[in-house]
């Protein structure tokens, strides 16, 4: 199949960027979207040009490294999919495709399609952990966790930290990411002890990082490759308010 790509090229954080057009006359419908970029890059290198910089690693939809806006949509047109798991059979022969980096003030562009997502790590460092020591932890079955609770905590824990939710949000908000992480730990008995402090610190760090505010567009849920629900945002808001009211000062 023949595809025309328009790709955002930007030499560095302070350099001006522009869209550059690449024709691929011989794309194969079984290729993944990243393999399409591989093919373009190999040709660029052989012509002595700099390849398109993009992030990727596991190519199995789980590491969260990859992610670009494809025709304005984070990770492209297929719901519940990372860019590495998007295959060209979902495009039509002759399609024009626009490829851009994640859009968000909190994710500055580093080069071409690569952005800086370290703000997400700093949110975790603010309280996205259980303060447990690596000595003799209690016997694992000594605290039963109802299956429904474990399953729901898992649904939240499945976030891969790709940042699509932020990139798609018209406000550039990170509520889906932060709430998923808070919900995962706050729901489990092991994480309940630090529930208030965790919610407060993580929400405040998120705000300090320059993410926008959530105004319930729900675009994040629509593009999340792991199907994380915005219900967790309501839960986070409840936990945050509760923490403020109780204000234990932990």
């Amino acid at each position: 199949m023949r595809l025309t790509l328009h790709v955002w090229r930007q030499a560095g954080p302070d350099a001006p960027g522009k869209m550059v057009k690449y024709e691929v006359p011989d794309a194969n419908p079984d290729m993944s979207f990243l393999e399409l970029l591989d093919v373009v890059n190999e040709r660029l290198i052989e012509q002595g040009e700099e390849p398109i910089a993009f992030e990727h690693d596991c190519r199995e939809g789980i590491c969260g490294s990859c992610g670009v806006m494809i025709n304005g949509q984070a990770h492209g047109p297929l719901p519940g999919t990372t860019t590495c798991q998007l295959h060209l059979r979902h495009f039509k022969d002759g399609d024009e495709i626009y490829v851009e980096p994640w859009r968000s003030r909190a994710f500055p562009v580093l080069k071409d399609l690569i952005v800086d997502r370290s703000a997400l790590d700093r949110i975790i460092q603010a309280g996205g952990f259980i303060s447990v020591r690596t000595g003799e932890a209690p016997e694992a079955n000594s605290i039963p966790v109802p299956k429904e609770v474990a399953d729901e905590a898992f649904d939240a824990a499945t976030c891969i930290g790709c940042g699509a939710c932020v990139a798609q949000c018209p406000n550039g908000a990170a509520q889906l990411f932060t709430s998923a992480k808070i919900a995962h730990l706050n729901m489990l008995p092991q994480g309940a002890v630090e529930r208030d402090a965790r919610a407060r610190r993580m929400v405040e760090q998120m705000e300090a990082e320059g993410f926008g505010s959530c105004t319930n567009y729900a675009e994040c849920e629509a593009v999340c490759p792991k199907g994380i629900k915005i219900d967790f945002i309501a839960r986070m808001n409840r936990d945050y308010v509760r923490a403020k009211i109780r204000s234990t000062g932990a």
Partner: protein
Amino acid sequence: MELDPKIPPGPLEDKWDNFKNSARLVNPANKRKFTVIVVGTGLAGASAAATLGELGYNVKCFSFHDSPRRAHSIAAQGGINAAKNYQNDGDSVFRLFYDTIKGGDFRSREANVYRLAQISENIIDQCVAQGVPFAREYGGLLANRSFGGAQVSRTFYARGQTGQQLLLGAYQALSRQIRAGQVEMFPRHEMLDLVIVDGHARGIVTRNLLTGEIRSHAGHAVVLATGGYANVFFLSTNAKNSNATAIWRAHRRGALFANPCFTQIHPTCIPPSGEYQSKLTLMSESLRNDGRIWVPKQPGDKRPPATIPEEERDYYLERRYPAFGNLVPRDVASRAAKKVVDEGRGVGPTGIGVYLDFADAIKRLGRKTIEERYGNLFEMYERITGENPYETPMRIYPAPHYTMGGLWVDYELSSNIPGLYVIGEANFSDHGANRLGASALMQGLADGYFVLPNTICNYLSQHLGETVSTRDPAFDRAEREVRDRIARLLSINGKRSPDYFHRELGKIVWDHCGMERSRESLEEALRLIPALRDEFWRDVRVPGSGEDINQSLEKAGRVADFFELAELICRDALDRDESCGTHFRVEHQTEDGEAKRDDEHYAYVAAWEYAGEGQEPRLHKEPLKFEVVHFAQRSYK
């Protein structure tokens, strides 16, 4: 060179306690006087950095990813073993130990493996305490399933994302130490050399992948947790950036490389579909619990699977191995698949593949149960192949997956260079010639949370009061070599991309040292690899500069190291004139085509010493002594 594995005295079950009770300690006030460098943030590296930080050491932790959470451990799907015997099916520490020794075809160290089985129970406790959402039963207790190579259900899992959940646990523990200021995190930094001062590992040289800055970092000890090297094959289940550079650079500085030819070929991967293919995707081995593997009885049978009647199908694993059936260990399942494909009975458009069929399981358990157990794996398969595995059988084929070889370490996980520790997949230690399913996660976390933090103080306690700094001339020399090498790669200005050479190298290693090897194939590989390597150094093209993000430069450096490693892999495979585990020399097989070991001559660890560029490496042998288990022919019939 004398290779001392430093196995503690006493009966097998007491060795670890004996070690801990007699090891030297570092008192809490002194721990903060030590700096430990940890390279890599997968299960082994993140758990080690977090635990060392928690103990009070100053830790400098390096990752080439933008975030420590992206290490390739995250992609492990199936599960983690632990001898908890929750199912009352007769499991025990001894059984897990025995299965691992036998699965590894008697090419691993008894004491290490026993310790791993012992610690397995603590790992689950630790991870649950951290909030890892393992699968639970309705009563609220932890659920288990069975995995290849075992007849008990000892595998703990979190849907098909066990690796992700365990890594997030370790990453969160690491994040806590970063917040506490105990760990200084260096994301987007790649280790390009190891620095040795007076015979001791005292630091590393890194490249900042954003700015290209080459910089030295000093520490009292260096811990490598950089994973495996199966990407030497180009097509493998490893993440694209997984590489051998850190351990290879350490090897060039004197660390011995053990059993490099032991590469596990995973039996259940999605078959390649074309030349543009960039990697292969693994389908969790847990699928073999319910899926039945078959091919048509007739070669060249191209009918759609649903139209092939029962009596014309060959469920070859169930036929050949009635006791284990579809759950035989990975090496056995992989070779059996290759055999039927070589007979012309392979399926799918390329004829390279076998069916993994869930029709019976769906009939028996209902579609809903199958969805609950494997839903995300089925989705992933459909996304990649465009076929719906609920309706038509999956197609699978073996692919390079895990490397049991790695840097040689003793019982304390120390390499032969004092102060250099190697943990997780980067070392060679616990899996012998083949790794059982759900054991990699177990080893990574055992090493990082429990083993290394206890063994490293034995070394550090002897170096109290020593200051380390990057002012030693050894750092300048190493930095200069790193810069020269980068300048050389950038100046070749040839015609081919680094990926082109990587792909060609991968084909050579797969064809000549893949699922089976022979003297002829290996000698041929040892002719082809140096020729291609020379071409690489003449004709590779690395555009751009060394002073900003340059992914071609990163790749080129790694591919250059893969060339040297590939040669050592083939040399090791040639030298080991027997079959064992994943190392299948066609010259050595039993009458029914199984691997035939030669315990009299090859029950040793092959540890290779680097002898200089273009020089033949020197082989050192660590004899393996089996005091508790006895050599036996592996049989899964």
